[in-house]
Protein backbone atom coordinates (compact mmCIF):
# COMPACT_ATOMS: atom_id res chain seq x y z
CA UNK A 1 0.00 0.00 0.00
CA UNK A 2 1.23 3.50 -0.84
CA UNK A 3 2.18 5.95 1.87
CA UNK A 4 -0.67 8.21 2.98
CA UNK A 5 -0.87 11.75 1.64
CA UNK A 6 -1.38 13.19 5.11
CA UNK A 7 -0.37 11.46 8.29
CA UNK A 8 -1.17 12.62 11.83
CA UNK A 9 0.35 10.69 14.71
CA UNK A 10 -0.56 11.20 18.39
CA UNK A 11 -1.31 14.85 17.80
CA UNK A 12 -2.47 16.74 20.90
CA UNK A 13 -3.26 20.40 21.29
CA UNK A 14 -3.61 22.48 24.44
CA UNK A 15 -4.33 26.19 24.55
CA UNK A 16 -2.68 28.16 27.33
CA UNK A 17 -0.42 26.97 30.10
CA UNK A 18 -0.58 25.78 33.67
CA UNK A 19 -3.92 25.24 35.43
CA UNK A 20 -5.81 27.48 32.93
CA UNK A 21 -4.83 25.31 29.98
CA UNK A 22 -7.63 23.99 27.80
CA UNK A 23 -7.16 20.66 26.06
CA UNK A 24 -8.54 21.08 22.55
CA UNK A 25 -7.37 17.85 20.97
CA UNK A 26 -6.47 14.62 22.77
CA UNK A 27 -4.25 12.31 20.78
CA UNK A 28 -5.37 12.29 17.17
CA UNK A 29 -4.20 9.54 14.84
CA UNK A 30 -5.36 9.92 11.27
CA UNK A 31 -3.98 8.89 7.89
CA UNK A 32 -5.50 10.25 4.71
CA UNK A 33 -4.77 8.62 1.37
CA UNK A 34 -4.43 10.45 -1.93
CA UNK A 35 -7.66 11.28 -3.78
CA UNK A 36 -9.67 10.81 -0.61
CA UNK A 37 -12.45 13.32 0.27
CA UNK A 38 -12.43 13.35 4.06
CA UNK A 39 -15.09 15.25 5.98
CA UNK A 40 -14.73 15.93 9.69
CA UNK A 41 -17.93 16.40 11.66
CA UNK A 42 -18.45 16.90 15.37
CA UNK A 43 -20.15 19.06 18.01
CA UNK A 44 -19.14 22.72 18.13
CA UNK A 45 -16.03 23.32 20.17
CA UNK A 46 -14.70 19.79 19.57
CA UNK A 47 -11.53 21.12 17.97
CA UNK A 48 -12.27 20.18 14.36
CA UNK A 49 -11.20 23.60 13.06
CA UNK A 50 -8.13 23.44 15.31
CA UNK A 51 -7.24 20.15 13.64
CA UNK A 52 -7.46 21.83 10.24
CA UNK A 53 -5.35 24.81 11.38
CA UNK A 54 -2.71 22.37 12.65
CA UNK A 55 -2.55 20.68 9.24
CA UNK A 56 -2.42 24.14 7.66
CA UNK A 57 0.59 24.91 9.83
CA UNK A 58 -1.00 28.03 11.37
CA UNK A 59 -0.90 26.44 14.82
CA UNK A 60 1.74 24.15 16.32
CA UNK A 61 0.63 20.93 18.01
CA UNK A 62 1.53 20.58 21.69
CA UNK A 63 2.84 17.11 20.86
CA UNK A 64 2.72 14.59 18.03
CA UNK A 65 3.73 14.64 14.38
CA UNK A 66 2.00 15.87 11.25
CA UNK A 67 3.49 14.79 7.91
CA UNK A 68 2.50 15.69 4.39
CA UNK A 69 3.93 13.24 1.85
CA UNK A 70 6.49 12.18 4.44
CA UNK A 71 7.70 15.73 5.20
CA UNK A 72 6.86 17.21 8.61
CA UNK A 73 4.60 20.26 8.61
CA UNK A 74 6.46 23.21 10.13
CA UNK A 75 4.40 26.18 8.97
CA UNK A 76 1.90 27.39 6.39
CA UNK A 77 2.73 26.83 2.75
CA UNK A 78 1.22 26.69 -0.72
CA UNK A 79 1.30 22.86 -0.76
CA UNK A 80 -1.81 23.02 1.44
CA UNK A 81 -4.53 25.25 0.02
CA UNK A 82 -7.08 26.54 2.55
CA UNK A 83 -10.56 28.02 2.21
CA UNK A 84 -11.91 29.67 5.35
CA UNK A 85 -15.54 30.41 6.15
CA UNK A 86 -14.74 34.11 5.59
CA UNK A 87 -11.70 36.35 5.07
CA UNK A 88 -9.99 34.09 2.55
CA UNK A 89 -10.01 36.91 -0.01
CA UNK A 90 -8.05 40.15 0.05
CA UNK A 91 -10.59 42.98 -0.21
CA UNK A 92 -8.11 45.27 -2.01
CA UNK A 93 -7.57 42.88 -4.91
CA UNK A 94 -10.00 42.16 -7.74
CA UNK A 95 -11.24 38.66 -8.43
CA UNK A 96 -8.41 38.31 -10.96
CA UNK A 97 -5.87 39.73 -8.50
CA UNK A 98 -7.03 37.34 -5.80
CA UNK A 99 -6.81 34.27 -8.02
CA UNK A 100 -3.40 35.37 -9.33
CA UNK A 101 -2.08 36.14 -5.84
CA UNK A 102 -0.56 32.78 -5.00
CA UNK A 103 0.89 32.48 -8.50
CA UNK A 104 2.60 35.86 -8.16
CA UNK A 105 4.09 34.76 -4.86
CA UNK A 106 5.40 31.65 -6.58
CA UNK A 107 6.94 33.75 -9.36
CA UNK A 108 4.88 32.27 -12.20
CA UNK A 109 5.47 34.34 -15.38
CA UNK A 110 2.72 36.71 -16.44
CA UNK A 111 1.42 34.88 -19.53
CA UNK A 112 1.24 31.59 -17.69
CA UNK A 113 -0.46 33.32 -14.77
CA UNK A 114 -3.14 34.81 -17.01
CA UNK A 115 -3.80 31.43 -18.57
CA UNK A 116 -4.22 29.75 -15.16
CA UNK A 117 -6.47 32.54 -13.93
CA UNK A 118 -8.73 32.23 -17.00
CA UNK A 119 -8.89 28.49 -16.55
CA UNK A 120 -9.93 28.78 -12.91
CA UNK A 121 -12.43 31.55 -13.60
CA UNK A 122 -14.13 29.10 -15.98
CA UNK A 123 -13.83 26.29 -13.46
CA UNK A 124 -15.92 28.16 -10.87
CA UNK A 125 -18.20 29.84 -13.46
CA UNK A 126 -17.10 33.41 -12.73
CA UNK A 127 -16.22 34.54 -16.27
CA UNK A 128 -17.08 38.23 -16.59
CA UNK A 129 -16.54 38.97 -12.90
CA UNK A 130 -12.73 39.11 -13.04
CA UNK A 131 -12.53 42.88 -12.43
CA UNK A 132 -14.97 43.00 -9.53
CA UNK A 133 -13.85 43.52 -5.94
CA UNK A 134 -14.90 41.02 -3.24
CA UNK A 135 -17.35 43.43 -1.62
CA UNK A 136 -19.28 43.59 -4.90
CA UNK A 137 -19.89 39.83 -4.87
CA UNK A 138 -22.44 37.71 -2.99
CA UNK A 139 -21.21 35.37 -0.26
CA UNK A 140 -21.53 32.38 -2.58
CA UNK A 141 -19.53 34.07 -5.32
CA UNK A 142 -16.86 35.08 -2.82
CA UNK A 143 -16.45 31.45 -1.80
CA UNK A 144 -16.18 30.44 -5.48
CA UNK A 145 -13.34 32.94 -5.85
CA UNK A 146 -11.70 31.59 -2.68
CA UNK A 147 -11.94 28.10 -4.13
CA UNK A 148 -10.46 29.23 -7.46
CA UNK A 149 -7.68 31.12 -5.67
CA UNK A 150 -6.78 28.03 -3.67
CA UNK A 151 -6.95 25.61 -6.60
CA UNK A 152 -4.84 27.89 -8.80
CA UNK A 153 -1.88 27.27 -6.48
CA UNK A 154 -2.07 23.51 -7.28
CA UNK A 155 -1.95 22.36 -3.65
CA UNK A 156 -1.33 18.72 -2.73
CA UNK A 157 -4.28 18.84 -0.38
CA UNK A 158 -7.30 21.13 -0.12
CA UNK A 159 -8.28 22.22 3.41
CA UNK A 160 -11.78 23.61 3.86
CA UNK A 161 -12.95 25.15 7.15
CA UNK A 162 -16.77 25.22 7.07
CA UNK A 163 -16.52 27.01 3.73
CA UNK A 164 -20.28 27.10 3.17
CA UNK A 165 -21.23 27.75 6.82
CA UNK A 166 -22.16 31.39 6.22
CA UNK A 167 -24.19 30.75 3.05
CA UNK A 168 -27.92 30.23 2.60
CA UNK A 169 -29.18 26.69 2.08
CA UNK A 170 -29.76 27.01 -1.68
CA UNK A 171 -26.36 28.48 -2.47
CA UNK A 172 -24.77 25.91 -0.21
CA UNK A 173 -26.37 23.01 -2.10
CA UNK A 174 -25.15 24.34 -5.44
CA UNK A 175 -21.61 24.89 -4.17
CA UNK A 176 -21.56 21.40 -2.70
CA UNK A 177 -22.15 20.03 -6.21
CA UNK A 178 -19.39 22.27 -7.56
CA UNK A 179 -16.90 21.01 -5.00
CA UNK A 180 -17.81 17.40 -5.80
CA UNK A 181 -17.40 18.10 -9.51
CA UNK A 182 -14.00 19.72 -9.03
CA UNK A 183 -12.84 16.93 -6.74
CA UNK A 184 -13.89 14.27 -9.30
CA UNK A 185 -12.16 16.11 -12.11
CA UNK A 186 -8.84 16.66 -10.33
CA UNK A 187 -9.22 13.86 -7.75
CA UNK A 188 -7.56 16.18 -5.28
CA UNK A 189 -7.20 15.15 -1.67
CA UNK A 190 -9.66 17.15 0.42
CA UNK A 191 -9.99 17.66 4.17
CA UNK A 192 -13.33 19.34 4.83
CA UNK A 193 -14.57 20.48 8.27
CA UNK A 194 -18.30 20.98 8.85
CA UNK A 195 -20.88 20.83 11.62
CA UNK A 196 -23.61 19.86 9.13
CA UNK A 197 -24.07 16.08 9.15
CA UNK A 198 -25.85 16.03 5.80
CA UNK A 199 -23.02 17.98 4.18
CA UNK A 200 -20.46 15.65 5.75
CA UNK A 201 -22.19 12.58 4.31
CA UNK A 202 -22.97 14.08 0.90
CA UNK A 203 -19.40 15.24 0.28
CA UNK A 204 -17.13 12.84 2.13
CA UNK A 205 -16.03 9.52 0.77
CA UNK A 206 -14.75 9.06 4.27
CA UNK A 207 -16.47 10.66 7.27
CA UNK A 208 -14.61 11.31 10.52
CA UNK A 209 -16.76 11.83 13.62
CA UNK A 210 -15.08 13.67 16.46
CA UNK A 211 -15.94 13.50 20.15
CA UNK A 212 -16.77 16.43 22.42
CA UNK A 213 -13.83 18.38 23.86
CA UNK A 214 -11.09 17.41 24.20
CA UNK A 215 -11.55 16.22 20.63
CA UNK A 216 -10.55 12.73 19.68
CA UNK A 217 -11.52 10.63 16.70
CA UNK A 218 -14.65 8.72 17.62
CA UNK A 219 -15.18 6.80 14.42
CA UNK A 220 -14.19 6.81 10.76
CA UNK A 221 -16.88 5.69 8.34
CA UNK A 222 -16.46 5.10 4.61
CA UNK A 223 -19.33 5.92 2.27
CA UNK A 224 -19.26 3.01 -0.21
CA UNK A 225 -21.97 4.25 -2.56
CA UNK A 226 -22.16 7.36 -4.72
CA UNK A 227 -24.47 9.31 -7.03
CA UNK A 228 -23.94 11.90 -9.76
CA UNK A 229 -25.03 14.91 -7.73
CA UNK A 230 -26.18 15.75 -4.24
CA UNK A 231 -29.88 15.97 -5.16
CA UNK A 232 -29.99 12.26 -5.90
CA UNK A 233 -29.05 11.49 -2.32
CA UNK A 234 -32.48 12.74 -1.26
CA UNK A 235 -34.24 9.57 -2.44
CA UNK A 236 -31.41 7.23 -1.56
CA UNK A 237 -32.24 4.96 1.42
CA UNK A 238 -28.58 4.09 2.01
CA UNK A 239 -27.83 7.82 2.29
CA UNK A 240 -30.68 8.35 4.75
CA UNK A 241 -29.50 5.44 6.88
CA UNK A 242 -25.91 6.66 6.94
CA UNK A 243 -26.97 10.22 7.74
CA UNK A 244 -29.11 9.01 10.63
CA UNK A 245 -26.34 6.80 11.95
CA UNK A 246 -23.82 9.64 11.91
CA UNK A 247 -26.28 12.14 13.37
CA UNK A 248 -26.94 9.77 16.31
CA UNK A 249 -23.22 9.49 16.84
CA UNK A 250 -22.80 13.28 16.82
CA UNK A 251 -25.88 13.84 18.97
CA UNK A 252 -24.42 11.62 21.65
CA UNK A 253 -21.38 13.91 21.75
CA UNK A 254 -23.45 17.10 21.77
CA UNK A 255 -25.36 15.77 24.77
CA UNK A 256 -22.17 14.61 26.46
CA UNK A 257 -20.76 18.13 26.12
CA UNK A 258 -23.76 19.63 27.90
CA UNK A 259 -23.10 20.24 31.62
Amino acid at each position, binding site marked *: MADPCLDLRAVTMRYGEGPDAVAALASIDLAIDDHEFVTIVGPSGCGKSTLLYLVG*GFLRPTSGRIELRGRPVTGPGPDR*GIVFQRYSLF*PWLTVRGNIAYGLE*EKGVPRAERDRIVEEHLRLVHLEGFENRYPRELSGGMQQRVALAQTLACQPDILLMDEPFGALDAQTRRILQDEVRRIWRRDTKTVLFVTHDVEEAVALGTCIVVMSARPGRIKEVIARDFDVADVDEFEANPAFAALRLRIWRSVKQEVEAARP
Partner: protein
Amino acid sequence: MSSRARSYWAGALARLLPLALVLAAWQAASMSGLLPKAVLPSFGEVAASLGAMLRSGEIVPHTLASFARAGAGFGVAVAGGIVLGILMAQVRFVERAVEPVLLLIYPVPKPALIPLFMIWLGIGDFSKVTVIALACLVPVVIATFNGARGVDEMLLWSARARGTSERRILWRVVLPAALPQIAAGVRTAIAVAIIVLVSSEFISAETGLGYLIFSYGGVGADDAMLAVVIYLAALGYLLDRLYLAGLRRLMAWHAFAH
Protein backbone atom coordinates in the same frame (compact mmCIF):
# COMPACT_ATOMS: atom_id res chain seq x y z
CA MET B 1 -24.37 62.42 -18.97
CA SER B 2 -25.42 59.10 -17.53
CA SER B 3 -28.53 58.91 -15.36
CA ARG B 4 -26.38 57.93 -12.39
CA ALA B 5 -24.21 61.02 -12.79
CA ARG B 6 -27.31 63.16 -13.27
CA SER B 7 -28.92 61.91 -10.05
CA TYR B 8 -25.61 62.52 -8.26
CA TRP B 9 -25.57 66.16 -9.34
CA ALA B 10 -29.27 66.54 -8.54
CA GLY B 11 -28.59 65.20 -5.04
CA ALA B 12 -25.64 67.56 -4.58
CA LEU B 13 -27.75 70.53 -5.68
CA ALA B 14 -30.59 69.57 -3.33
CA ARG B 15 -28.06 69.52 -0.51
CA LEU B 16 -26.86 73.01 -1.45
CA LEU B 17 -30.39 74.43 -1.30
CA PRO B 18 -30.57 74.84 2.53
CA LEU B 19 -27.22 76.65 2.42
CA ALA B 20 -28.53 78.96 -0.30
CA LEU B 21 -31.66 79.59 1.80
CA VAL B 22 -29.56 80.61 4.82
CA LEU B 23 -27.44 82.96 2.68
CA ALA B 24 -30.57 84.46 1.11
CA ALA B 25 -32.12 85.01 4.56
CA TRP B 26 -28.90 86.70 5.69
CA GLN B 27 -28.95 89.02 2.66
CA ALA B 28 -32.66 89.80 3.09
CA ALA B 29 -32.18 90.62 6.80
CA SER B 30 -29.33 92.99 5.94
CA MET B 31 -31.21 94.73 3.15
CA SER B 32 -34.38 95.20 5.20
CA GLY B 33 -32.35 96.77 8.00
CA LEU B 34 -33.22 94.02 10.50
CA LEU B 35 -29.52 93.15 10.67
CA PRO B 36 -27.47 96.34 11.10
CA LYS B 37 -24.14 96.55 9.33
CA ALA B 38 -22.44 97.14 12.66
CA VAL B 39 -23.46 93.63 13.74
CA LEU B 40 -22.92 91.81 10.50
CA PRO B 41 -22.24 93.12 7.00
CA SER B 42 -24.51 91.75 4.31
CA PHE B 43 -23.57 88.64 2.38
CA GLY B 44 -23.27 90.76 -0.77
CA GLU B 45 -20.68 93.01 0.86
CA VAL B 46 -18.69 90.03 2.11
CA ALA B 47 -18.79 88.45 -1.35
CA ALA B 48 -17.74 91.73 -2.97
CA SER B 49 -14.86 92.04 -0.53
CA LEU B 50 -13.75 88.49 -1.31
CA GLY B 51 -13.97 89.22 -5.04
CA ALA B 52 -11.82 92.34 -4.62
CA MET B 53 -9.22 90.39 -2.64
CA LEU B 54 -9.06 87.66 -5.27
CA ARG B 55 -8.82 90.17 -8.13
CA SER B 56 -6.11 92.27 -6.53
CA GLY B 57 -4.18 89.10 -5.67
CA GLU B 58 -3.77 90.38 -2.12
CA ILE B 59 -4.81 87.04 -0.67
CA VAL B 60 -2.39 84.91 -2.72
CA PRO B 61 0.84 85.38 -0.70
CA HIS B 62 -1.09 84.75 2.53
CA THR B 63 -2.60 81.58 1.08
CA LEU B 64 0.83 80.36 0.04
CA ALA B 65 2.34 81.14 3.45
CA SER B 66 -0.41 79.23 5.23
CA PHE B 67 -0.20 76.35 2.78
CA ALA B 68 3.56 76.07 3.20
CA ARG B 69 3.29 75.93 7.02
CA ALA B 70 0.39 73.49 7.17
CA GLY B 71 1.73 71.39 4.29
CA ALA B 72 5.22 71.03 5.77
CA GLY B 73 3.94 70.00 9.21
CA PHE B 74 1.28 67.73 7.74
CA GLY B 75 3.73 66.04 5.35
CA VAL B 76 6.27 65.29 8.06
CA ALA B 77 3.51 63.98 10.33
CA VAL B 78 1.99 61.66 7.71
CA ALA B 79 5.33 60.16 6.65
CA GLY B 80 6.60 59.79 10.21
CA GLY B 81 3.24 58.72 11.62
CA ILE B 82 2.75 55.84 9.20
CA VAL B 83 6.28 54.52 9.77
CA LEU B 84 5.96 54.84 13.54
CA GLY B 85 2.47 53.29 13.63
CA ILE B 86 3.58 50.29 11.56
CA LEU B 87 6.68 49.84 13.71
CA MET B 88 4.53 49.93 16.85
CA ALA B 89 2.21 47.30 15.43
CA GLN B 90 5.07 45.03 14.33
CA VAL B 91 7.58 45.37 17.16
CA ARG B 92 6.36 44.84 20.71
CA PHE B 93 9.20 46.84 22.20
CA VAL B 94 8.45 49.91 20.10
CA GLU B 95 4.78 49.69 21.05
CA ARG B 96 5.55 49.53 24.76
CA ALA B 97 8.07 52.36 24.48
CA VAL B 98 5.97 54.74 22.36
CA GLU B 99 2.50 54.10 23.79
CA PRO B 100 3.05 55.87 27.15
CA VAL B 101 4.62 58.86 25.39
CA LEU B 102 1.62 58.97 23.07
CA LEU B 103 -0.77 58.78 26.04
CA LEU B 104 1.16 61.67 27.57
CA ILE B 105 0.76 64.03 24.60
CA TYR B 106 -2.72 62.80 23.57
CA PRO B 107 -4.74 64.94 26.03
CA VAL B 108 -2.69 68.10 25.39
CA PRO B 109 -4.72 70.57 23.30
CA LYS B 110 -1.98 70.99 20.71
CA PRO B 111 -2.37 74.77 20.15
CA ALA B 112 -1.41 75.17 23.83
CA LEU B 113 2.08 74.03 22.80
CA ILE B 114 2.52 77.05 20.52
CA PRO B 115 3.83 79.50 23.17
CA LEU B 116 6.30 76.94 24.49
CA PHE B 117 7.63 76.14 21.04
CA MET B 118 7.90 79.86 20.27
CA ILE B 119 10.24 80.19 23.24
CA TRP B 120 12.33 77.24 22.05
CA LEU B 121 12.33 77.72 18.31
CA GLY B 122 11.57 81.40 17.88
CA ILE B 123 8.44 83.08 16.60
CA GLY B 124 9.12 82.19 12.95
CA ASP B 125 7.70 79.42 10.80
CA PHE B 126 9.79 76.67 12.34
CA SER B 127 7.91 76.66 15.64
CA LYS B 128 4.54 76.68 13.85
CA VAL B 129 5.50 73.82 11.54
CA THR B 130 6.77 71.78 14.49
CA VAL B 131 3.55 72.18 16.47
CA ILE B 132 1.45 71.35 13.39
CA ALA B 133 3.57 68.25 12.76
CA LEU B 134 3.25 67.12 16.38
CA ALA B 135 -0.52 67.71 16.36
CA CYS B 136 -1.03 65.80 13.09
CA LEU B 137 1.28 62.99 14.14
CA VAL B 138 -1.03 61.75 16.91
CA PRO B 139 -4.10 60.79 14.82
CA VAL B 140 -1.92 59.29 12.05
CA VAL B 141 0.11 57.12 14.45
CA ILE B 142 -2.96 55.92 16.34
CA ALA B 143 -4.91 55.13 13.16
CA THR B 144 -1.95 53.34 11.54
CA PHE B 145 -1.26 51.35 14.69
CA ASN B 146 -4.90 50.31 15.09
CA GLY B 147 -5.17 49.46 11.40
CA ALA B 148 -1.99 47.42 11.27
CA ARG B 149 -2.63 45.67 14.57
CA GLY B 150 -6.26 44.99 13.74
CA VAL B 151 -5.57 43.12 10.49
CA ASP B 152 -7.69 39.99 10.61
CA GLU B 153 -5.55 37.01 11.42
CA MET B 154 -7.37 34.96 8.76
CA LEU B 155 -6.03 37.34 6.10
CA LEU B 156 -2.49 36.77 7.35
CA TRP B 157 -3.12 33.02 7.36
CA SER B 158 -4.50 33.19 3.82
CA ALA B 159 -1.37 34.98 2.65
CA ARG B 160 0.98 32.54 4.39
CA ALA B 161 -0.94 29.57 2.99
CA ARG B 162 -0.37 31.04 -0.47
CA GLY B 163 3.35 31.23 0.01
CA THR B 164 3.92 34.80 1.19
CA SER B 165 7.03 35.13 3.34
CA GLU B 166 6.93 37.00 6.66
CA ARG B 167 8.99 39.81 5.20
CA ARG B 168 6.65 40.36 2.25
CA ILE B 169 3.49 40.14 4.38
CA LEU B 170 4.01 43.74 5.51
CA TRP B 171 3.72 45.02 1.93
CA ARG B 172 1.33 42.47 0.55
CA VAL B 173 -1.20 42.28 3.40
CA VAL B 174 -0.65 44.48 6.47
CA LEU B 175 -0.26 47.78 4.63
CA PRO B 176 -3.20 47.36 2.20
CA ALA B 177 -5.43 46.00 4.97
CA ALA B 178 -4.58 48.95 7.23
CA LEU B 179 -4.99 51.51 4.44
CA PRO B 180 -8.65 52.46 5.12
CA GLN B 181 -7.85 53.29 8.75
CA ILE B 182 -4.65 55.12 7.81
CA ALA B 183 -6.66 57.14 5.31
CA ALA B 184 -9.17 58.08 8.03
CA GLY B 185 -6.32 59.15 10.33
CA VAL B 186 -4.82 61.30 7.58
CA ARG B 187 -8.21 62.92 7.01
CA THR B 188 -8.39 63.87 10.70
CA ALA B 189 -4.87 65.24 10.39
CA ILE B 190 -5.97 67.60 7.59
CA ALA B 191 -8.60 69.15 9.88
CA VAL B 192 -6.15 69.28 12.80
CA ALA B 193 -3.51 70.98 10.63
CA ILE B 194 -5.92 73.78 9.71
CA ILE B 195 -7.02 74.36 13.33
CA VAL B 196 -3.45 74.53 14.66
CA LEU B 197 -2.38 76.65 11.69
CA VAL B 198 -5.09 79.26 12.30
CA SER B 199 -4.44 79.26 16.07
CA SER B 200 -0.71 79.79 15.58
CA GLU B 201 -1.27 82.55 13.02
CA PHE B 202 -3.68 84.25 15.42
CA ILE B 203 -1.07 84.21 18.16
CA SER B 204 1.91 85.43 16.15
CA ALA B 205 2.41 85.91 12.43
CA GLU B 206 2.90 88.60 9.81
CA THR B 207 1.56 86.51 6.96
CA GLY B 208 -1.02 83.79 6.48
CA LEU B 209 -4.80 83.57 6.39
CA GLY B 210 -5.11 83.43 10.18
CA TYR B 211 -3.10 86.64 10.43
CA LEU B 212 -5.31 88.24 7.78
CA ILE B 213 -8.53 87.33 9.65
CA PHE B 214 -7.09 88.60 12.90
CA SER B 215 -5.81 91.89 11.55
CA TYR B 216 -9.02 92.69 9.62
CA GLY B 217 -10.99 91.82 12.79
CA GLY B 218 -8.72 94.13 14.79
CA VAL B 219 -9.47 97.16 12.60
CA GLY B 220 -13.20 96.42 12.43
CA ALA B 221 -13.23 95.53 8.72
CA ASP B 222 -15.85 92.83 9.26
CA ASP B 223 -16.66 92.30 5.59
CA ALA B 224 -13.01 91.61 4.72
CA MET B 225 -12.57 89.43 7.82
CA LEU B 226 -15.62 87.32 6.97
CA ALA B 227 -14.45 87.10 3.36
CA VAL B 228 -11.19 85.48 4.50
CA VAL B 229 -13.05 83.19 6.93
CA ILE B 230 -15.29 81.97 4.09
CA TYR B 231 -12.29 81.64 1.77
CA LEU B 232 -10.44 79.57 4.36
CA ALA B 233 -13.51 77.41 4.99
CA ALA B 234 -13.97 76.84 1.27
CA LEU B 235 -10.30 75.91 0.86
CA GLY B 236 -10.51 73.45 3.76
CA TYR B 237 -13.69 71.96 2.36
CA LEU B 238 -12.17 71.64 -1.09
CA LEU B 239 -9.05 69.94 0.29
CA ASP B 240 -11.21 67.45 2.18
CA ARG B 241 -13.32 66.70 -0.92
CA LEU B 242 -10.25 66.33 -3.13
CA TYR B 243 -8.72 63.97 -0.61
CA LEU B 244 -11.89 61.86 -0.46
CA ALA B 245 -12.19 61.77 -4.27
CA GLY B 246 -8.56 60.65 -4.49
CA LEU B 247 -9.19 57.93 -1.92
CA ARG B 248 -12.25 56.62 -3.73
CA ARG B 249 -10.18 56.31 -6.87
CA LEU B 250 -7.24 54.73 -5.09
CA MET B 251 -9.29 52.36 -2.97
CA ALA B 252 -12.18 51.31 -5.16
CA TRP B 253 -12.16 48.02 -3.28
CA HIS B 254 -13.22 49.63 -0.01
CA ALA B 255 -16.82 50.49 0.85
CA PHE B 256 -16.63 54.06 2.16
CA ALA B 257 -19.17 55.16 4.71
CA HIS B 258 -20.05 58.29 2.73
